[in-house]
C-alpha cells in the first residue's frame, strides 16, 4: 500500500532541528521524498508499523505533528502530479 506521510516539526530549538533531521532520515529510508516534508512510501503493513514506531519515538507530541494518509493499493488513481520534482512509480519499470 502507498502511505503518504507529512510532518511538521517545531524547529525553534536545536533539539527540534535534530528531530526534523531524524524524522526526514527515517522517511527517506522508507520512501520517496515528493515535497519538502511530504513522503510517499510503498510499504507492507509490517513495514508501516515499523516506520510508525520509529517516527513516533522521535517526535515530541507536544510541539510536532505527523499525518499518515492511506492511499491503499489502488493509489495510482488517487495521485496526480503537476509541475517540477518529477517522481518515479515504485511499482513501474525502474530503469536508469
Amino acid at each position, binding site marked *: 500500500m502507498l502511505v503518504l506521510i507529512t510532518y511538521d516539526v517545531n524547529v525553534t530549538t536545536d533539539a527540534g532541528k535534530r528531530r526534523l533531521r531524524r524524522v526526514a532520515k527515517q522517511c527517506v529510508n522508507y520512501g520517496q521524498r515528493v515535497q519538502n516534508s511530504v513522503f510517499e512510501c510503498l510499504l507492507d503493513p509490517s*513495514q508501516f508499523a515499523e516506520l510508525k514506531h520509529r517516527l513516533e519515538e522521535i517526535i515530541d507530541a507536544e510541539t510536532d505533528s505527523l499525518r499518515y494518509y492511506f492511499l491503499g493499493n489502488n493509489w495510482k488513481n488517487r495521485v496526480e502530479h503537476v509541475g517540477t520534482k518529477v517522481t518515479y512509480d515504485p511499482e*513501474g519499470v525502474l530503469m536508469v
Partner: protein
Amino acid sequence: MRRLLNTLYVTMPDAYLACDGENVLVKVKDEIKFRVPVHNLESIICFGFAGASPKLMYLCCERGVALSFLTEYGKFMGRVTGGISGNVLLRRAQYRWADDPSISARLSKRFIAAKIVNSRALLHRVLRDHKEVVDQNSLEKALRWLAGTLDRLEKAPDGNVIRGIEGEAAQIYFSNFNQLVLSQKENFYMENRNRRPPTDNINALLSFLYTLLTHDVVAALESVGLDPQVGFLHRERSGRPSLALDVMEELRPHFADRLAVTLINRKQISADGFIVKENGAVIMEDETRKEVLTAWQKRKQEEITHPYLEEKIPLGLVPYVQALLLARHLRGDLEDYPPFFWK
C-alpha cells in the same frame, strides 16, 4: 499474497551503485541520478559495469536483493546474493517440478500454447496486410490447422503428446514461412527448418537469431536464480539450456522470426552476405552478422506494453519479465505462469 517487488535495471554503462541508509543510489560521475528504498526492490540488474560499493552489496545480501551483472550485450557475468536468499529453495522447487510429469506437462502447455498463438499471429498478420500477394488458401488452412493443434494441446495427457503437437505445429508454421517473405523471394527460400548446420539463408539467419535469444533468456533465468539447464518441456541433456529453450518457445515468433522476415523484406540483408561452405552449410558474413546484431539491439529497445503486467517496457526486458514471473510461480506467489502472448 506477497507484494510483487520491483527490479531496478541499470543500463547506463558509467553508472555506479552505492547506498545511503536504506536507499539504493545510482550515481553517474558523483551525481545522484536515482534513489529508491531497498525494500521496494527484488533485484538489481546492471548492464555494463562501472561499479557497486561493497556496502551496497552488503545491503543487497542482507535484504535478499539479487544483484546481477551482465555485459552490455546481455551476457550473464555474475550475481551477488546473500546466504539466506531463496535461491536454493527456488531451484529445488524447480527440480521437483521438473521431475513431476503432471506439473511439467501443465507448464509445457503454457509455453507451447503461447508459441502457437504467437506463430498464428504472424501468419495472420501477413494474410491481413498482403492479401493480394500471398497464397490465401494455404495460409487460411494453416491458421485453421494451428487452431486445431491448440485445442488438442489443451487436452494433451502427457509430455510426449505435447512434444508431438509442438512438432506438428512447427511443421505447419515453417511450411508457410516462405509466405512471410515478400521480397528477395528467390534468394530467401526455405525448404524446411534445419540446423546444425543450416543449409539455406533463412535457416542460417533464424539459427543466429535463436542463439542471440538463447543468450538473453539464459541470462534472464540466471539473474532470477533459476537453473537454465533444467527444463519442463525439454529434457536434460549435457550442456543444453533446457529451461531457456522452454521459455524461448513463446518468444521465438515475435523476437526472432519477425525480425528475420523484416530484415529480408526491408532488404537490410541480401543473399550476397551469406556464404555456402563445401559441406552445404550456410553461414553469414561479418557484415551481415553486424547488420543483424544492430537490428537485434535496436529491436530490443522498442517499447511494448507487456500483456500481463500492462506496463510499458522495452522488448529486451521481456525475457527477464518472463523469468521473474516463472520464479514467482515456483515460489507460490503466482497461481499460474502467464506466458507471453503477442498479437
